[in-house]
């Protein structure tokens, strides 16, 4: 059989890729016929012409050696007490409810116990901050004028051409549907719901949520002690004539958003 340079290269690259698949993608190492590949490499070895081909040959041999190593690891794992058929595990995962799965975790869970503490350096830094902080009276005398944020009505946005009525209604409906799905019959943390990849998108979601609550699509529950805010979607929009309403100001700064993105 005539083997061209291209065939030789393809064979060696195929072996290298296979070895990478075994290492990285969890392909069963026993699916690779190592002996046959070694025989084919041996057959083409005398025909290798240049250093590139020889380098590829070395990589291919190393790849096969790696596959043998993983075969050994696989045998060791399968003979250990921890080995269970992945298909059996998948079947059990599918058949158990969330509560049962949670019970499986907690029954094998021994959480770490530790306490956070402050170092002497941290105490000194806090003391310096407090000592150097201007008094409340001094701070009040700073030359600045506080401008309170104002609410922009939907009509105003429509007048400015930013949002049409149809777009607005569909945005509300979309958000309501998403909220119902995420709350899954219960409630969901306000921050979890509005949290998005960008600060602008987060603000946009918070804005839509304010209408969801104002128009009776959802209720908002503020728990000051836990410092948590929960949203609960209503199955049908509630008419607000007979309900006592109140405003909940929620400040969302970029730094707060970044902190929540970082800490989850």
């Amino acid at each position, binding site marked *: 059989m005539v083997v061209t340079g291209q065939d030789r290269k393809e064979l060696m690259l195929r072996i290298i890729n296979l070895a990478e698949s075994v290492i990285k993608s969890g392909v069963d190492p026993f699916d690779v016929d190592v002996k046959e590949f070694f025989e084919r490499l041996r057959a083409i070895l005398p025909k290798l012409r240049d250093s590139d081909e020889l380098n590829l040959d070395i990589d291919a041999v190393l790849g096969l050696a790696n596959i043998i190593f993983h075969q050994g690891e696989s045998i060791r794992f399968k003979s250990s007490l921890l080995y269970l058929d992945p298909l059996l595990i998948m079947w059990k995962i599918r058949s158990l409810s969330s509560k049962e799965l949670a019970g499986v975790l907690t029954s094998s869970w*021994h959480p770490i116990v530790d306490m956070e503490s402050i170092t002497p350096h941290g105490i000194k830094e806090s003391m310096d901050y407090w000592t150097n902080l201007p008094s409340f009276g001094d701070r009040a005398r700073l030359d600045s004028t506080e401008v309170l944020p104002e609410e922009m009505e939907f009509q105003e946005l429509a007048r400015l051409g930013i949002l049409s009525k149809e777009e607005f209604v569909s945005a509300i409906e979309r958000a309501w549907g998403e909220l119902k799905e995420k709350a899954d019959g219960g409630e969901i943390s306000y921050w979890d719901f509005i949290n998005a990849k960008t600060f602008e998108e987060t603000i946009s979601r918070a804005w839509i949520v304010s209408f969801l609550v104002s128009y009776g699509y959802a209720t908002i529950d503020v728990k000051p002690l836990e410092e948590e805010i929960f949203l609960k979607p209503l199955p049908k929009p509630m008419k607000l004539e007979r309900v006592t309403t109140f405003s909940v100001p929620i400040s969302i700064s970029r730094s707060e958003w970044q902190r929540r993105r970082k800490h989850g």
Partner: protein
Amino acid sequence: MAEEKDVADLREKVARAAQLLLFRRHMQPGVKAWELKRDLGRNYLEVIKVLDDELGKLGLTVKKVEGGEEGSDSDRYFVTMRGHPAVSEARTFGWRIDDMAILSVVLSYILSKQGKAPLKEVERVLEEKFPRWKVEQDIDRFIRRGYLEEDDEGVLYIGWRTRAEVDQKALLGLLLGREKVVEEKVKPEGSPEVGENEREAEEDVQ
């Protein structure tokens, strides 16, 4: 007289070991073996054994997680609960039932795949039961907390916190129904409610 001095010395070392293990001094909780050796001396394992006995009275234990080769200085020691929390109790730590269920699925799946599985594959399994946004959010959180590790190739591994906190063999056994899921919290040492099987499942401090 010499004996009294030894006892006082040991007590001091046990107290020091408790401080080292319980107060977090780094980003991660726990203390490395070389730090214990440095602060408690060469016989630090004996001190840890005494501390473990004392902590047992409070329902806690000292857990060792191997860092590499056996007897390595990079082994890490943690204080963990001796028993386990009930589902209802775990909810008071800020864990939702679906968060616990997702971690249970991820760990079981990775363990059944020899300790590593591609992220995409894990997400596909989870999305059969949970919404996509929840899956992504929880996996990110578990990686941040150390329950999972992810490499540059997008492969998930068991993280340091799982090795410290989760009895992996029991997890798989419970999943397959070979062991019983216990709802009640295991009481501290000395309590008659503590099951023998559970006690045996605990890893002894060497």
